[in-house]
């Protein structure tokens, strides 16, 4: 029996691959791809009773985004994600550089940089609340020091949301940049130095172009999850700092308007797609740039 099966496999060399890939592949098809397709269908169907849908086709849920209220949420989502990406880049680039140059302690630093990624987003957000709330550590410390009389409003502000987003996203920026800096051939820097490049122009002309792919990848990994964030604006931003993630949750939760929620989810997916295409394009241009430079050298 077993021989027979093996013989059959031998005659169809791809079949063990299909057999092994099968369970995981089907699971992802059924519980990742299929739901998203259903979501897409929901987003173009008229709203039914109790959050359901009724047969038909409509684009009204997408048209609703033209309402200033939802446009504002979209704008805030993109703006905060952009600020978050920028802040992460400013913090992560030097940090990644520092890790790459830290010699024997490199692995430890790397581990410490990645650790927050594995910590529950909820716990990290709670930690921010603990620091930022009116009776939190920062306000108490400032009041005890006599610098302020009344607590500063730190929580439920745009700044709080931004801090929370950056806090969660930083490892995603550090890792790819570190990877591209690590690959950098030290001889290149020395060569640049030998050619009389001073440190700043050495950075702009040699290091930055070579680490740009890492920056692009990191930006993508920060920007994309920020677009869909939900816990951070929910707990740190409150009702006034809604992002599109909260809108989605709202439609699937209290508002019970699933079609509109689905449309909002696809709005996020569309933004994600645009961001990814943009970055891929940038990377493509960069590659061309790199090769033409290589040929010139």
């Amino acid at each position: 029996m077993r021989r027979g099966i093996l013989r059959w496999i031998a005659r169809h060399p791809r079949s063990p691959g299909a057999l092994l890939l099968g369970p995981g592949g089907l699971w992802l098809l059924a519980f990742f791809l299929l739901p998203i397709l259903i979501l897409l269908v929901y987003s173009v169907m008229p709203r039914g009773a109790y959050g359901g849908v009724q047969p038909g086709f409509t684009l009204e849920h997408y048209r609703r985004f033209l309402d200033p209220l939802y446009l504002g949420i979209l704008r805030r989502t993109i703006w905060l994600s952009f600020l978050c990406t920028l802040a992460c880049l400013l913090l992560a680039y030097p940090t990644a550089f520092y890790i790459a140059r830290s010699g024997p302690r490199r692995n430890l630093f790397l581990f410490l940089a990645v650790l927050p990624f594995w910590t529950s987003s909820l716990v990290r957000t709670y930690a921010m609340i603990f620091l930022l709330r009116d009776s939190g550590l920062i306000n108490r410390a400032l009041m005890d020091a006599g610098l302020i009389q009344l607590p500063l409003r730190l929580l439920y502000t745009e700044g709080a949301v931004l801090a929370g987003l950056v806090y969660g996203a930083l490892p995603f920026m550090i890792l790819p940049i570190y990877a591209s800096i690590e690959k950098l051939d030290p001889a290149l820097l020395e060569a640049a130095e030998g050619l009389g490049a001073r440190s700043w122009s050495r950075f702009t002309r040699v290091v930055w172009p070579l680490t740009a792919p890492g920056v692009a990848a990191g930006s993508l990994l920060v920007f994309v999850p920020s677009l869909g964030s939900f816990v951070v604006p929910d707990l740190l931003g409150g009702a006034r700092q809604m992002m599109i993630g909260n809108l989605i949750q709202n439609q699937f939760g209290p508002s019970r308007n699933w079609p509109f929620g689905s449309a909002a989810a696809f709005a996020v997916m569309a933004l994600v797609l645009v961001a990814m295409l943009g970055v891929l394009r940038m990377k493509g241009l960069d590659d061309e740039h790199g090769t033409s430079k290589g040929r010139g050298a």
Partner: protein
Amino acid sequence: MTARRVPFAVSATAVVTYAFLHLPLLVLIAFSFNRSRFGVQWGGFTLDWYARLAFRPDILRAMRLSLVVGLLSTLLATAMGTLAAVALARYLPRARRAAGGLLYLPIVTPEIVAGVSLLVLFSWMGIALGITTIVIAHTAFSIPFVTVVVLARLQGTDHTLEEAAMSLGADELSTFRRVTLPQLMPGVLAGALLAFTLSFDDFVTTFFVSGVGSTTLPLAVYSMVRKSVEPTINALSALLVMVTTVAVYLADRLARGSTRA
């Protein structure tokens, strides 16, 4: 290169980054041992808040549920993710790009989209939300991580070992059992630990696919946080952080150690 001096601005930024990454959690953990209930004054060391957790049946239930969900989804995801990695590395090298897309898509898709889409799927199929749906969802988002980790391990191993086993008379099944799997084990364990961590910590997806009475630990923390800020939450958070840190540290050790072998 390491001898080159790092500019002050660079090291200063690094210090800021690390402080930003770790101080909030360290403060949180420190205050889980603080006797004083309100505010920031240090009232002395205590384990009271942890002890209190033990007398909260809802927390204990949530903890048990999180463990069960974590173990089940880890088991499922590790088995399927490992097999998929073997398939991609050994049998379907050309399908790797296409399958790679399906694998990485879940990693880049915003979790909230995946979460609500599963909610829609389950309601469309008429499956009641509960532990089953949570396990299904957690397994789905863990599979890609397991596959990626095992795939990395597989790429580090020598395919000729399997050919050698076959040339010594081992058929496909014996080769997998006696040669491939032992080579793969560190990667599989690392993948399993990561899958457990993902499941144990997950909030967003679970939020949408859990039903009444199926409250995992993060969901319990969420409702506590929404209600008030109190030291028991610090204690609970500290526990979550410690579980995660240990698991990730072990996974990291396994993955690292294994590439050297």
